[in-house]
């Protein structure tokens, strides 16, 4: 064992390589995944397994084709993380080919065709999610009700059976699994409110329905809180900085609060928006992707805030109930511009404005 190691300055310890960072982010999703299993069944585990296998195979094959060091690239866990994030974003009982096509698209097209890790302009998981959403709208919107109010319960074996054949081992289809105890087909809380508003109900009337527990969707609140826990763990360990999630949540809260104050019947409250849908996981795990997000401090604040604005705009006036993926992709496109205008002043140099003149 070396007692004294010589190294030149800066004497910065605890440097993590890419693989370690990606692994820690993967671990941080565990609370959210556990909460998801508790409320919505085991489907998510099968999706994750399928996604990770597809991602590793795709990445490996492409690395061989590009004649790169396959093993080293596979060990950086970036493909695993992208697969994981895609798998937790799609409905737990979606057919197996949905996640396989999606993960292949994320790794092969969105990541490797642009040059691999570090060169992809778009967030692979979110680009794949959007691709799946526009290609297979039925499968991608078949969300299950929380187990506590579902008419049919399902076991791990049922989940496996459903993902691969479309039916549980006792012959129920996903459509039937979506039926709640009151006999109506369940949607996500965001969907429910959106549909209710279109039918002329107010937000408050919509949230009295069975899938709601107060203002929050049953189960969804706890899943969001679990992801929030993982996200705070990441910030505490300095894996991600607080800027993107902070500004994203703040801007989403601010815009939804102002809309709520203008017309509380038409626009849901800020807390409703934050704890329903995927805003939390989006803020802490998806928007913070180090490759496709802005890299400067000021830029991160702008990047996060803009995503928050887009999310609330699309949720309220767009065609889709949730909008993390669209918002992240839109802002991914703006990142080069944001980075260009927010370059920090180099020590010893004057700032850009005076340099240009």
């Amino acid at each position: 064992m070396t007692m004294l190691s010589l190294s030149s300055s800066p004497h910065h310890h605890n440097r993590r390589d890419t693989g370690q960072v990606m692994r820690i982010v993967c671990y941080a999703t565990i609370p959210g995944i556990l909460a998801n299993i508790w409320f919505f069944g085991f489907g998510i585990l099968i999706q994750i397994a399928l996604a990770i296998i597809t991602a590793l195979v795709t990445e490996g094959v492409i690395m061989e084709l590009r004649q790169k060091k396959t093993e080293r690239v596979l060990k950086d866990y970036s493909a695993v993380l992208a697969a994981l994030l895609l798998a937790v974003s799609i409905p737990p009982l979606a057919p197996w080919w949905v996640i396989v096509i999606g993960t292949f698209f994320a790794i092969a097209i969105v990541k490797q065709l642009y040059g691999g890790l570090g060169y992809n302009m778009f967030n692979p998981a979110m680009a794949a999610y959007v691709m799946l959403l526009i290609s297979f709208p039925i499968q991608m919107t078949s969300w299950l009700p929380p187990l506590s109010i579902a008419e049919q319960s399902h076991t791990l074996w049922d989940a496996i059976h459903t993902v691969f054949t479309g039916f549980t081992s006792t012959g129920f289809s996903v459509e039937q699994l979506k039926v709640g105890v009151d006999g109506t087909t369940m949607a996500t809380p965001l969907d429910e409110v959106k549909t209710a508003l279109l039918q002329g109900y107010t937000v408050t009337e919509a949230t009295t329905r069975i899938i709601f527990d107060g203002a929050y969707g049953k189960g969804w609140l706890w899943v969001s809180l679990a992801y929030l826990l993982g996200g705070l763990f990441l910030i505490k360990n300095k894996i991600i900085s607080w800027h993107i999630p902070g500004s994203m949540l703040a801007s989403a809260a601010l815009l939804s609060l102002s809309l709520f104050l203008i017309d509380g019947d038409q626009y849901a409250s800020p807390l409703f928006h934050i704890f329903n849908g995927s805003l939390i996981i989006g803020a802490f795990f998806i928007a913070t992707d180090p490759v496709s997000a802005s890299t400067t401090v000021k830029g991160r604040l702008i990047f996060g805030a803009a995503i928050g604005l887009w999310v609330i705009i699309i949720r309220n006036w767009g065609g889709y109930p949730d909008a993390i993926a669209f918002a992240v992709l839109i802002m991914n496109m703006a990142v080069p511009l944001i980075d260009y205008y927010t370059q920090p002043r180099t020590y010893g140099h004057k700032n850009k404005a005076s340099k240009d003149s």
Partner: protein
Amino acid sequence: MNEYKNLSVQGIWKNNPALVQLLGLCPLLAVTATVINGLGLGIATTLVLLGSNITVSLVRNFVPNEIRIPIFVMIIAAFVTIVQLLMNAFTFELYQALGIFIPLIVTNCAIIGRAEAYASKNPVPLAAFDGLMMGLGFTLILVVLGAMRELLGYGTLLVGADLLLGDWAKDLTIVIFTTDSPFLLAILPPGAFLGMGLLIALKNVIDKLVEKRSESAKQAKVVQRARVTGTDL
């Protein structure tokens, strides 16, 4: 004859209007959801190219240089109108399927590009042949892209062949697979962009392989010659 060979290679491969010049992308991406749509637009574009190249070449010595572009555009527009009326008369359903993209052939840069770059400087036979080859190159890409998207999106090939070829062609339709959940991305415009990008990449890969092969063939020759002239054997 050598010039004709050169024109064919340029039009179909080396200087393909769709893959290399990236001209006429708007109709290319918009109508290639099926093979027959692509083929229909490809034939229409080829006819217009042929006609406009011949006419531009015929009048090339009378057209004042300063106003040549408006004149070319009017010639092209005249041919597009002819093709549009013909399609309206004989392939009405395809005419409706292609919609606005038939009149929009006027704005296809590949056509005015050939008129300006080639037909206005060369005699009629060469210009006509150039128009034909460029049109074929364009049609080829339309058909390949259409086939890719139709196969992925609907699982079929040559759906609606009767719209273009008459009733006997109904049997040409090939069903590769049937699915309840079609891969909508392939049919939607983003799929066209992705497919186009992959086609361009494929062309570049093939070009590179060919280049490598010819290079290694050359090197092999050099080595042989060295052995032949070697004195210490």
